[in-house]
């Protein structure tokens, strides 16, 4: 049923609708889909979303229990990761707290300074809150801070 | 477009009356009109609809009597009343009208009918409902008989079918019991008096019926004994026998049943067989299973061999219904699996298959394509 992709990538892109639609065409839009594809698209558009769901897998009893067990194990694994992270954060907070307490004891002046409200100071764009994953745009290359302009 | 933006929403009603000056400002023009006669639709004043309560707090009402006429449900229907299509509230039980508030819907007013004069509404949430029976007793015997025999249309139309089923049931019962009687007399040489024989036959028929719906034979025996003792107890309750008689009869028949059970038992297919002890049954089961496995498993069986297997499976008193079914599906399946040796024959000439070989088109998993193979006739149990 499925033919292997033998045509080169560039020619496939050229023939796909996405590229052609970018070029402005005056007059009635001409679809480049074949008649049979159009028919299928029309038929699908008339069906409700629930009918377009993939067919439900008919698993045997053994495989259903296997599936349930895999889900159970995955939940357990995720819970353990979460617990580890939580513990780590707790430790970090505790260590920060201890350091600040230490600072309070040794140099109250520095402690005051460290805790002073910094008014008018915005969060610099260069800095990011630490996250698990990089942002979609990793770095703003043409950025220059305001006060240097 | 620009005009609408300038004038704003206020200009929408009489756009035709607007004049736009050269500077773009808008002036309204009033034409000289004078209404001479009144309008046609301004005279529809209807008479009062006579709404309001028709029965008041504490009044006695009969079923169907209207309590309240209203537009919309100003007052909601409470206990023992109903609401009509035009929100008319009417009583469905005879009793005394009560207007009240319900703690479950604090913003609603309710009207209900309390069945007794001293009862208030709503009835407390956890106390039993007060209900009226309302059906009068038929004292005239002929009238009562007629009413009792009266059938609903559904019951009436089902009568022929019911009679047929009853007839079939009775026929089965008489056939099976006569078979039982025959077996007791000739096969087991039991000499019983008339009453004992009757009891024994009823008991065996009870057991047969219970086993037929899937009850284990031992449970069925207990149930059959219980059925008999229960019936005996009811004869005592009806004062047909005395309490002493009941006890003596009970003891006698319990002993009789145990002696009967030690000689005769009912098989799952409804025939009387000699009693087999549980250990013996187990060993027999193992022996037959072993024979089946060693001689008849994993090969194509001929018609004769199938019959042999069937007779082994149906050895009296050894396997119950479920076990028989399992053994049948294992050793004499309707179509022998492909994995059995010699059940698949490779053929080269599809047009002229060898004698006694049936052509079958199958899907080959490995090659992912259809393939034509031959299968011996014996592979298919129900094919002539």
């Amino acid at each position, binding site marked *: 049923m499925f033919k292997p992709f033998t045509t080169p990538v560039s020619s496939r892109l050229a023939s796909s609708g996405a590229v052609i639609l970018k070029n402005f065409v005056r007059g009635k839009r001409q679809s480049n889909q074949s008649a049979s594809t159009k028919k299928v698209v029309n038929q699908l558009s008339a069906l409700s979303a629930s009918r377009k769901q993939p067919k439900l897998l008919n698993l045997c009893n053994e495989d259903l229990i296997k599936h349930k067990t895999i889900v159970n194990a995955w939940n357990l694994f995720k819970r353990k990761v979460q617990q580890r992270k939580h513990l780590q954060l707790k430790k970090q907070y505790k260590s920060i707290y201890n350091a600040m307490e230490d600072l309070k004891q040794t140099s109250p002046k520095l402690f005051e300074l460290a805790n002073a409200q910094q008014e008018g100071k915005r969060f610099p764009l260069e800095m990011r809150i630490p996250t698990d994953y990089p942002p979609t745009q990793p770095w703003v290359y043409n950025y220059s801070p305001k006060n240097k302009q | 477009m620009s005009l609408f933006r300038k004038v704003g929403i206020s200009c929408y009603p009489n756009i035709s009356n607007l004049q736009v000056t050269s500077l773009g400002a808008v002036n309204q023009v009033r034409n000289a009109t004078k209404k001479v006669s009144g309008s046609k639709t301004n005279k529809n004043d209807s008479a009062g609809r006579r709404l309001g309560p028709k029965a008041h707090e504490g009044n006695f009402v009969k079923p169907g009597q209207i309590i309240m006429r209203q537009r919309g449900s100003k007052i909601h229907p409470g206990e023992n009343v109903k609401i009509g299509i035009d929100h008319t509230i009417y009583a469905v039980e005879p009793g005394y009208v009560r207007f009240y508030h319900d703690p479950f819907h604090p913003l609603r007013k309710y009207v209900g009918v309390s069945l007794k004069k001293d009862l208030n509404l709503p009835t407390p949430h956890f106390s039993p409902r007060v209900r009226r029976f309302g059906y009068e007793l038929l004292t005239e015997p002929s009238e009562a008989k007629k009413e009792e025999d009266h059938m609903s249309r559904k019951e009436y139309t089902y009568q022929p079918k019911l009679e047929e089923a009853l007839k079939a049931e009775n026929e089965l019962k008489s056939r099976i019991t006569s078979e039982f009687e025959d077996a007791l007399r000739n096969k087991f040489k039991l000499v019983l008096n008339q009453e004992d024989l009757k009891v024994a036959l009823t008991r065996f028929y009870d057991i047969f019926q219970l086993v037929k719906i899937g009850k284990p034979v031992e449970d069925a025996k207990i149930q059959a004994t*219980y059925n008999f003792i229960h019936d005996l107890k009811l004869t005592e309750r009806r004062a047909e026998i005395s309490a002493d008689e009941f006890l003596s009869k009970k003891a006698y028949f319990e002993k009789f049943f145990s002696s009967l059970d030690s000689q005769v038992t009912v098989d799952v297919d409804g025939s009387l067989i000699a009693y087999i002890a549980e250990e013996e049954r187990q060993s027999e089961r193992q022996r037959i299973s072993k024979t089946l496995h060693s001689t008849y498993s994993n090969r194509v069986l001929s018609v004769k061999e199938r019959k042999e297997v069937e007779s082994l499976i149906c050895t009296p008193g050894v396997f119950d219904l479920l076990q028989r079914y399992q053994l049948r599906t294992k050793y004499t399946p309707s179509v022998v699996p492909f994995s059995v040796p010699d059940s698949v024959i490779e053929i080269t000439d599809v047009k002229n298959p060898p004698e006694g070989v049936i052509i079958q088109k199958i899907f080959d998993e490995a090659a992912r394509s259809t393939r034509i193979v031959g299968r011996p006739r014996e592979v298919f149990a129900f094919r002539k």
Partner: protein
Amino acid sequence: MLQAKSGVRIATRNVASFSKRFQSTSSGIWTDFSKRSASLKLNSPEVKQGLLHKINPEEGPASISDYNRRLAYHSPEDIDETFKQAYELLQQEAEVKYKEIEGYKKRLGEAKSTKEVEFLKKSIDKLLVDAEVKNPEVLYNVEYTDVELLDKSQPVYRHLLKEKWEAYDLMITMQRLEQLHMIPDTLPTLDPKVDVKVKFPHNVKEEFADWVVPGTVLPAFAVSQPPTIQIQEFETVEEKNLYSIVLVNPDTPDLKTNSYSTTLQYGLANVPLDNVDNVIDTSKLFSQGEKFTFKDYQPLVPEKNAQTQRACLWVFRQSEELTLGDIARENFDIRDFASKNNLTAVGAHIWRQRFDRSVNYVRNKYGLGEGRVFRRVRGTAPVV
């Protein structure tokens, strides 16, 4: 041509060699039955092989009975490898739980105060549930084998059965109790604690032989003998609890007041039951019935046109042994009975009956005389 649709796998490998190759070498806590009960095992060896190791591609999954469907079955990709990892992970977690249980058991041996003992026992039960609740064999047993054959002394089975009960049967029961107004017509309300199931074992027709769904309308012949009652506790019962069971009919016509009265149809008291021994069946009634029964069973026999009547079965947990005097059948006050004897309702069941052609037969059997006949149309006379 079913064979053509299903895949053919011509035997190339020996089945025995297959199962040998796929036996796992790991031996964790879930495969060790020296300390754990054997009832946590999956009994069928074929299903166990398919569940814990790999489904034999030549045989197909053992849980599918049809040969052709079995052959046509394909497991999802990589499910066995993933399952193996998942099983190991969950088993390790269970091992931790069993170690904790060891510690608790040691503490239980040294514990002195009853409060501490109770706490420790509760904790051990909870840990036993946690250790086994994800065991695939246990899950398979609860989901796909006969629930009545499960070992209810295992906390994990009780836990899973309770979840199953709450998800369906309990909801059905509570709906029927409320919608048929058994609550509050008999007792104010119910906090359900046990699963109550009822069946009539004397029935030889399949449609009436099974457990009764709450609220079903049954004919008189189907209820003509005492029911089998199963009371499944989900909490641990160490020594046997005592139970009382009453069956009442709150719809007996009371012509004097033109209302209804309650009749006691059946009464059992001081029935000792626990998690495993949880059923009052024919054999128990036969051997000990007279000890438990304080009111003999009398089925509901609704008279013609007396409408549908409800048979309300209440199960009470007793705090101590009861000594009941003679209790009248007529005008039975169930609320008074429960409060006087210090009974707490833990479960209930209901079925309904109306006049049918077998009522007269049952009336005669119980010596109840001719039934009254009421007018078909309801009158308007008020409640007295």
